[in-house]
């Protein structure tokens, strides 16, 4: 039997979900819509009513704030929400006062039990039921006894506004039945035949037929259309076809709606898993559980309904919508799998056929690569199996091999032509090599560009590791799941580094289109950026918070070109004991899969990331989307750290893109591996051997376990409820051999797999636009005080507190400098500082830099500026510039175009130049190419070249760190660094709508000296506050320091270190020249401070005041005079959702 238990807010309790959705719906143009929301649980098992009642009462509902309704699926009682959860306006007034007397006082449990009906005659129930009034109808299988209805329309005590009829499943008309009376809420037709076989209301057979027909939820292939009406077996509006027969199907008539949203079969449903286990803990046997969301809306037309469902309530990539009554009898997914070996006749294929195979098989390999595979199998004299082809496609994918950037590139720029044999090797890696050579015995790098994350020394006991990944394409299709699994995936990177590092903090950087982009400008196949934004933040929040890893640093960048291709960068820092830094699988070791089970999720994620997104991507690659289960990963983390410390394995790696294929193939590349695929634990039946092999199901790691440690490992895992399974063995064959139930399904030479990919030669060119000077009159037209407000309120600069506070940034107890600082805990910190070892004051500093706007002018200076920004953010809080490690993450458009690839090469050259000059090593990096969206019509939209530089700094004693908020009036304010007229790509240009100008450059030698001198000053305790100058330059930095400290400042531009010819106050205020800081210094420390900085440009530009005003003068005249409240409001408000 399949039961449904719905949980509703109790009477008098706010329906927070419904209210929030109604507000979001207003954004879609559905103004005034009312939505009632409930969550439901579908519970399958041979259960009687008392058991369901117990499950609802003891487990699913909170009797203080919730009420429940339970019935067999399809029962009419489930079609109408009970009283309670009143509308938003009314709730608001109620919230102000303590809970009023009208709050649901539920009947005592005993009373319910006493009057309980025998199961067959009372199968529907609710928490507020008065069973004595339950109607009994002969022959009626499921009499409705849901006294939630007793108070419905008009009957509500206390003269409250009656429940609007719009919330019942039908609109109006003669069928309107008063609940609690003889007739259940019937006319909500439960007929399956499209509304024509209408049941007569009151006949007492509303459910005729539903019981005898098995109806499964539509499988994904049946429900690909984003139109909810087609998702449902029931035509829209069928609920009331007897009333408006002639209008059925004419969607222009607004009607109330009941909408169910369910995860598609096979999609991860963590709550259902937990619920199943918890019900069993009650001693009740159940077979399966699935959750659902349920909404009742005020009248909508079909078009509005479609909009609401597709844009707000459900995501077609992972969810299905069922309108009207839910009619299904069983929860089941998966059919038994019948083994059938599939081979692909590649040997006969010509070029056109090879290209078609690559595309339609979602291999996304180039023609030369397909030819190499064909030739290999021609030599072997056999055709490949599908598993072999998939393994090659995954191993050779851009995502896993970075073939573009490690390939041969012939590059041309204004300096001439240069040929790279391995571009990354000769730029980024080469910088690290050079830095390490120069450090000699003082080299503090441990393992760079080798393992899953870069590793550097930290203290006597520990190394630290850092990895930043992107999860762009999945997040474009399903923001919550994409970001969720993005953070989940990158957490497994440190965990899979060395013998396993403990994750200690996360970083998140996002790029979106502006959230106020008009709906009309959203191409088909693209989610609205606001929805993407909210979904991504929620995905990161729910995973990071549940894992207990503080999210301490990040940035959000807005540009219209991210519309079809949002970027989601997730990073994780880990702490690795020094003696656990290296791993090596040994021949004879068992291949052990630990953690989550394997399902059909994420098939083709690795190869999909090589593809351009189109409006059809969600149809093509919906399987690439996954939902994570952070608790599974947390449990995995807990046992793995214990297993690591007990020495139970030789090597570990994560199952990320490419699943087992990638993990086992990579781990065994120097040995050989044999895998027995049927042993992998599956979420459900029906997976083919190839699906098992390439599934990217989350929360899995692969270990190389010596046979004599297996028993202990298995026992340890079992003791904490983590599944561990031997799926194969590393064998010294040099081959990757896969078997399924004894059948050989793949047998590849490791050498060909890892070295057989043909090297590609690509052309790259880059010629930056010559900079066009900004005419002086443009400056004169601009009003500095207004510009300052506009920049503070611009999306990139404004406060991200709405996001930051949703992340737990203090868990693990090591927080030192938080992301929000200052007197009111709301100023923008330059970097985060934390103590990973609670008994020590040695600290880590985490910051980032990114400025895609500069890349529009010259990607060289964009990259140089990003490094400078990341480093100066670290230095500003006190990091030692001799111990800053860098990470690069390139997100670019389609690098098949020579000029796009050229812009990337040019950025990589800048990385080399600046990193070597600053003597800071790159320790890890990642690239994501082909970030373009191809709309139905028109040109592809490419993202702007986007290089994220993450910086991991260290500080000897965190008690010497400083924050950016002004501290005391009377202190001096210094500007450190050199200002040029560098307004190209600036935020002044952005808010004033002016292009052109010189892009900010970096003088790395000067920058290095500035960083060292400033660090000395901070280290010596001479600096009270320090803030870097970035978007918006001096004026924005000064404003932020002032309102964060709740203190004013009076500054003069006249003394700023600059070329003599630079006399334009607008430039001095808003230029974005690099390597600059504002410092607050006590008068008594000024002498020492100035002495320390003697060999770098600096000037005392003003002082801190107690008046809440920021005043900036030029030649004695105030050019900016703003009160702190308005500055702060402008900054706080735009994303204060």
């Amino acid at each position, binding site marked *: 039997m399949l039961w449904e238990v719905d949980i509703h807010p109790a009477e008098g*309790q706010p329906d927070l979900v419904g209210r929030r959705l109604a507000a979001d719906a207003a954004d879609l143009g559905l103004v005034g819509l009312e939505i009632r929301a409930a969550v439901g649980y579908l519970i399958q098992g041979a259960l009687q009513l008392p058991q369901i009642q117990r499950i609802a009462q003891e487990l699913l509902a909170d009797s203080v704030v919730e009420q429940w309704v339970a019935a067999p699926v399809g029962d009419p009682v489930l079609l109408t929400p009970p009283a309670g959860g009143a509308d938003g306006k009314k709730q608001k007034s109620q919230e102000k006062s303590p809970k009023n007397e009208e709050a649901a006082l539920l009947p*005592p449990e005993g009373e319910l039990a006493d009057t309980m009906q025998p199961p067959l005659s009372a199968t529907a129930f609710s928490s507020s039921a008065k069973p004595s009034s339950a109607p009994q109808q002969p022959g009626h299988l499921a009499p409705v006894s849901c006294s939630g209805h007793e108070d419905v329309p008009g009957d509500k005590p206390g003269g409250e506004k009656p429940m609007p009829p719009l919330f019942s499943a039908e609109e109006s008309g003669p069928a309107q039945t008063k609940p609690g009376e003889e007739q259940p809420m019937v006319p909500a037709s439960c007929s399956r035949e499209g509304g024509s076989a209408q049941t007569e209301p009151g006949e007492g057979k509303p459910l005729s037929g539903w019981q005898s027909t098995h109806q499964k939820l539509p499988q994904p292939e049946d429900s690909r259309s984003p139109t909810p009406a087609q998702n449902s077996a029931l035509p829209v509006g069928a609920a009331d076809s007897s009333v408006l027969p002639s209008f059925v199907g004419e969607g222009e008539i607004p009607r109330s709606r009941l909408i169910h949203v369910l995860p598609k079969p096979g999609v991860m449903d963590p709550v259902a898993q937990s619920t199943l286990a*918890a019900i069993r803990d009650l001693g009740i046997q159940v077979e399966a559980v699935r959750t659902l969301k349920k909404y009742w809306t005020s009248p909508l037309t079909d078009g509005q309904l479609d909009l609401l469902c597709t844009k707000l309530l459900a995501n077609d990539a992972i969810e299905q919508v069922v309108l009207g009554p839910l009619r299904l009898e069983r929860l089941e997914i998966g059919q038994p799998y019948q083994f059938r070996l599939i081979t692909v006749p590649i040997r006969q294929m010509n070029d056109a056929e090879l290209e078609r195979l690559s595309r339609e098989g979602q291999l996304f390999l180039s023609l030369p690569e397909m030819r190499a595979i064909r030739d290999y199998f021609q030599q072997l004299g056999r055709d490949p199996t599908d598993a072999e082809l998939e393994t090659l496609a995954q191993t050779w994918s851009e995502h896993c091999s970075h073939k573009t950037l490690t390939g041969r590139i012939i590059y041309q720029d204004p300096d001439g032509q240069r040929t790279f044999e391995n571009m990354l090797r000769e730029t980024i890696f080469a910088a690290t090599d050079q830095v390490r050579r120069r450090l000699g015995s003082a080299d503090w790098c441990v393992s760079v560009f080798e393992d899953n994350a870069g590793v550097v020394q930290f203290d006597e006991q520990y190394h630290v590791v850092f990895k930043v990944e992107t999860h762009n394409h999945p997040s474009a299709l399903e923001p919550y799941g994409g970001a969720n699994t993005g953070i989940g995936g990158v957490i497994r990177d440190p965990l899979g580094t060395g013998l396993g590092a403990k994750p200690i903090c996360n970083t998140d950087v996002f790029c979106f289109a502006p959230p106020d982009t008009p709906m009309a400008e959203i191409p088909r196949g693209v989610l609205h950026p606001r929805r993407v934004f909210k979904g991504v933040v929620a995905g990161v929040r729910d995973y990071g918070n549940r894992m207990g890893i503080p999210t301490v640093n990040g940035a959000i960048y807005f540009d219209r070109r991210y519309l079809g291709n949002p970027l989601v960068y997730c990073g994780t820092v880990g702490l690795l004991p020094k003696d656990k830094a290296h791993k090596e699988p040994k021949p004879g070791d068992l291949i052990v899969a630990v953690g989550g089970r394997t399902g059909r999720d994420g098939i083709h994620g690795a190869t999909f990331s090589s593809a351009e997104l189109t409006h059809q991507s969600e149809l093509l690659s919906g399987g690439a989307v996954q939902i994570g289960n952070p608790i599974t990963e947390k449990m995995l983390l807990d046992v793995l750290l214990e297993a690591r410390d007990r020495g139970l394995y030789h090597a570990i790696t994560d199952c990320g893109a490419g699943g087992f294929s990638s993990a086992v193939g990579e781990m065994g590349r120097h040995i050989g591996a044999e895998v027995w695929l049927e042993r992998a634990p599956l979420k459900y039946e029906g997976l083919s051997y190839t699906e098992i092999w390439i599934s990217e199901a989350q929360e899995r790691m692969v270990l190389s376990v010596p046979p004599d440690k297996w028993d202990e490992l298995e026992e340890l895992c079992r*003791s904490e409820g983590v599944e561990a399974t031997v799926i194969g063995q590393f064998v010294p064959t040099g081959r990757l051999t896969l078997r399924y139930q004894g059948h050989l399904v793949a047998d590849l030479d490791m050498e060909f797999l890892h070295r057989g990919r043909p090297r590609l030669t690509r052309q790259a060119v880059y010629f930056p636009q010559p900079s066009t000077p900004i005419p002086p009159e443009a400056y004169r037209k601009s009003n500095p005080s207004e510009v300052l407000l506009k920049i503070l309120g611009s999306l990139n600069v404004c406060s991200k507190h709405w996001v930051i*506070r949703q992340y*737990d*940034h203090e868990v693990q107890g090591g927080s030192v400098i938080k992301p929000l600082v200052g007197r009111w*805990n709301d100023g923008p910190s330059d970097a985060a500082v934390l103590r990973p070892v609670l008994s020590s004051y040695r600290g880590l500093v985490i910051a980032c830099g990114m400025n895609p706007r500069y890349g529009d002018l010259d990607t060289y200076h964009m990259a140089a500026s990003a490094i400078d920004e990341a480093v100066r953010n670290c230095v500003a809080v006190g990091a030692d510039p001799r111990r800053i490690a860098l990470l690069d993450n390139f997100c670019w458009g389609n690098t098949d175009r020579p000029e796009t690839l050229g812009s990337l090469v040019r950025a990589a050259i800048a990385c080399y130049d600046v990193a070597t000059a600053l003597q800071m090593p790159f320790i890890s990096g990642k690239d994501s190419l082909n970030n373009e969206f191809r709309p139905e019509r028109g040109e592809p939209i490419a993202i702007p070249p986007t290089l994220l530089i993450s910086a991991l700094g260290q500080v000897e004693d965190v008690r010497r760190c400083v924050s950016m*908020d002004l501290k005391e009036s009377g202190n001096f304010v210094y500007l450190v660094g050199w200002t040029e007229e560098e307004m190209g790509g600036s935020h002044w240009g952005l808010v004033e709508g002016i292009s052109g100008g010189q892009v900010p450059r970096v003088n790395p030698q000067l920058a290095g000296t500035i960083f060292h001198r400033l660090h000395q000053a901070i280290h010596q305790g001479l600096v009270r506050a320090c803030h870097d100058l970035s978007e918006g330059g001096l004026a924005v930095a000064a404003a932020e320091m002032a309102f964060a400290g709740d203190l004013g400042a009076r500054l003069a531009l006249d003394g700023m270190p600059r070329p003599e010819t630079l006399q334009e106050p607008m430039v001095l205020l808003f230029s974005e020249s690099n390597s600059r800081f504002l410092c607050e210094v006590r008068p008594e420390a000024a002498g020492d401070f100035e002495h320390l900085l003697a060999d770098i440009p600096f000037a005392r530009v003003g002082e801190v005041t107690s008046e809440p005003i920021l005043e900036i003068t030029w030649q004695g005249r105030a050019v900016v005079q703003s009160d702190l409240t308005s500055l702060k409001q402008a900054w706080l408000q735009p994303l204060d959702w």
Partner: protein
Amino acid sequence: MALPRVLILRAPGTNCDVETAFAFEKAGAKAERLHVFRLLENPQLCRTYQIFCIPGGFSYGDDIAAGRILANQIRLHLADLLREFVESGKLILGICNGFQVLVKSDVLLPPTQEGLAQATLTWNDSRRFEDRWVRLAVTGRPCVFLEGIQELYLPVAHAEGKFVARDIATLQALESAGLLVLRYARLTGPLRVESQLIPYPENPNGSQANVAGLCDSTGRILGLMPHPERHIDPTHHPHWTRRLSARLEGLSAHCPSPESSPSCFRPPAAEGDGLRLFKNAVRYFA
């Protein structure tokens, strides 16, 4: 007497166990993290401890509702043991998720005559997780953990921390019994237990009566939403950088004028506010 032994309960999804154990150790206790599966296998294990602590986190993912599944496990399998534990004069502390578990397992407040919970912790009015620092006023009956403490400045980090009593009578009964021991307070001005709801974000979740923490009628069980273990060291305080460095103090001719009075604006000198709570627990057994 030997150092009191603390059982820090760990369940799938618990994630503040390490720093909570550290806080207890720093206060002078001996803390051990124990998985709930071990305790379910052998409930008698708890007898060797003097303090039972359920730390923060997302036990079982907070699936269904925050703390619900772990609370059910405790209610079904460990309730008697914990009752005995407290009756024998021992202490129980629940922080954040641990507080949610203590409330929902009926350990902290006995159920009504009808077997229903007296109160719950439910979704914040903002309906989202929020991490922010709050000022707390201590009031009500004596509670071991809060002895000698009038005011605390601690961070909250939760999505489901809104305290709601079953009805107004229950709320009044809890209040007059002095069990509503921790209240969110206004950030500025003299410390007061406000009779009215104070506005967001000072009351970060809309809790009735501004309740941030509850104790039981013995004063030996405390549950609270804020995280005392996150304010142990002076550098945890969000404003610690506003204090002068040792070097500047040396340079200064005069001491800086202290900031206005509330503790949230007065960075601690020696230790974080939260540590006092753990020290009280240890001192109780001294």
